[in-house]
């Protein structure tokens, strides 16, 4: 009992070191735990897989680089998947880091032969948040007279025949925020929307899925790992899954230990907290 109580008072810096080790070790020598594909991911995969060569899709980048480890693997997998199917991708940015992220993610595909302005385009960032999203959804070439590199959008091959967001075959957004903004502004255009979400905000998108305002959801690093599995192309996300497992176990153990120590303290009347209720 005394031991458990003492364990509750460990210097948090030891916990930080422990967390790094728990994440690092399975990454250095992978365990290779199998992962199951959830219904969310397989549904979203099926939708994206049904796209045909020549279809045009929006990728809206609504995250900052700090949230990237959890969201970006989804985008990486989708670029691979859709480019391999010959789908064309129009990239826009809801947040200002977007254009730089798009440049980075498309670089390997340019080297592999994808042509800028034909197979994909980086339209860049517009200030103004939700209002800007509403503006370009209603009239894309008015909101974006030029792309990120200063090319005229009205003559660009990839944007021929596209005026509003309804002219796209699918709309995919990636965000470290909640899905609400895109549901509010894009859902009215009757284009299938797929959300690539940071794990934190996924539960809040659940009602939109049930009401079919969102067509599919891909959630966080785990969602990306499942997507990689469906594509048969394990990448960064799959590599992180063992580490994810171990870190979860550690944090669960922390919560259990912490609570045990708390209840022991409380039973001895040592805890200041909890006395309130």
């Amino acid at each position, binding site marked *: 009992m005394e031991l458990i109580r003492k364990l509750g008072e460990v210097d948090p810096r030891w916990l930080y070191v422990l967390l790094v080790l728990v994440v690092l070790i399975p*990454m*250095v020598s992978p365990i290779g735990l199998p992962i199951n594909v959830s219904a969310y991911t397989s549904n979203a995969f099926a939708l994206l897989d049904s796209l045909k060569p020549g279809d045009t899709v929006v990728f809206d980048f609504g995250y900052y680089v*700090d949230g990237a*480890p959890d969201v970006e693997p989804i985008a990486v997998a989708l670029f691979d998947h859709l480019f391999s199917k010959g789908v064309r991708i129009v990239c826009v940015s809801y947040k200002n880091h977007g254009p730089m992220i798009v440049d980075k993610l498309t670089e390997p595909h340019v080297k592999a032969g994808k042509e800028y302005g034909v197979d994909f385009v980086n339209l860049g960032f517009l*200030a103004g948040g939700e*209002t800007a999203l509403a503006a370009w959804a209603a009239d894309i070439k008015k909101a974006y007279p030029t792309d990120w590199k200063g090319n005229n959008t009205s003559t660009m091959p990839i944007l021929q025949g596209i005026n509003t967001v309804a002219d796209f075959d699918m709309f995919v957004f990636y965000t470290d925020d909640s899905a609400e903004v895109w549901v*509010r*502004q894009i859902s009215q255009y009757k284009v299938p929307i797929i959300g690539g979400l940071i794990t934190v905000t996924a*539960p809040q998108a659940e*009602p939109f899925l049930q009401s079919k305002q969102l067509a599919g959801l891909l959630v966080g690093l785990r969602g990306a790992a499942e997507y990689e599995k469906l594509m048969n192309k394990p990448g960064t996300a799959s590599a992180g899954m063992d580490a994810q497992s171990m870190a979860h176990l550690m944090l669960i153990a922390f919560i259990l230990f912490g609570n045990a120590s708390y209840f022991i303290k409380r039973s001895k009347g040592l805890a200041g907290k909890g006395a309130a209720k």
Partner: protein
Amino acid sequence: MSTSIVTWVGALVTIGAFSYLFKENVMYRTIEHIYVGAAAGYVISVGYQNLLTKAWRPLVNEGHWLVIIPVLLGLMLFGPYFGSKLSWTRRYPLSLIIGVGAGITIRSAVIEQLTKQLASTALPLKTINNVLIVAGVLATLSYFFFTFKPTRTLTGVSEVGKWVIMITFGAAFGNAIMGRVSLVIGRVSFLFGEWIHLIKQ
């Protein structure tokens, strides 16, 4: 070991930032200020680029004179820097942004987050799940009734609502922790993979 200078600088920045976890120190403060400065400079560049494509080129190349109005409004944001007598100038551009924003919020929230949600909750009460969904939504909503007389029924229903809310928070809590773990994985993979190549890529 990586030979890329970007990776090396990035690794030093990462270690400097993390050093705060052990103790507030000079390296952390230096990194913090460099970062805040760079982020501000980045935002200025993005703003400049936006003005170039949305205001300057349409005005000069295509003669869209109407663009002058938002440009003037934009400049009015800076009025207060030229003395408190000009502090009123900022209200007009703010009014435009806030007014349009408020209008857009009302018009889309009412459909996407209200009527469509109401319609999707009108489920046939023939399965346990449907009953739970309908009852759960109603109970949660009644937790946010603030001004009605607290009858025993209302208090009871809103107490149920509080339980539903706590389970909802539990789901969010689990997800939040998962998401945060991914961030650590990202940094560990950068430091030990990209930088010192301990993790095989």
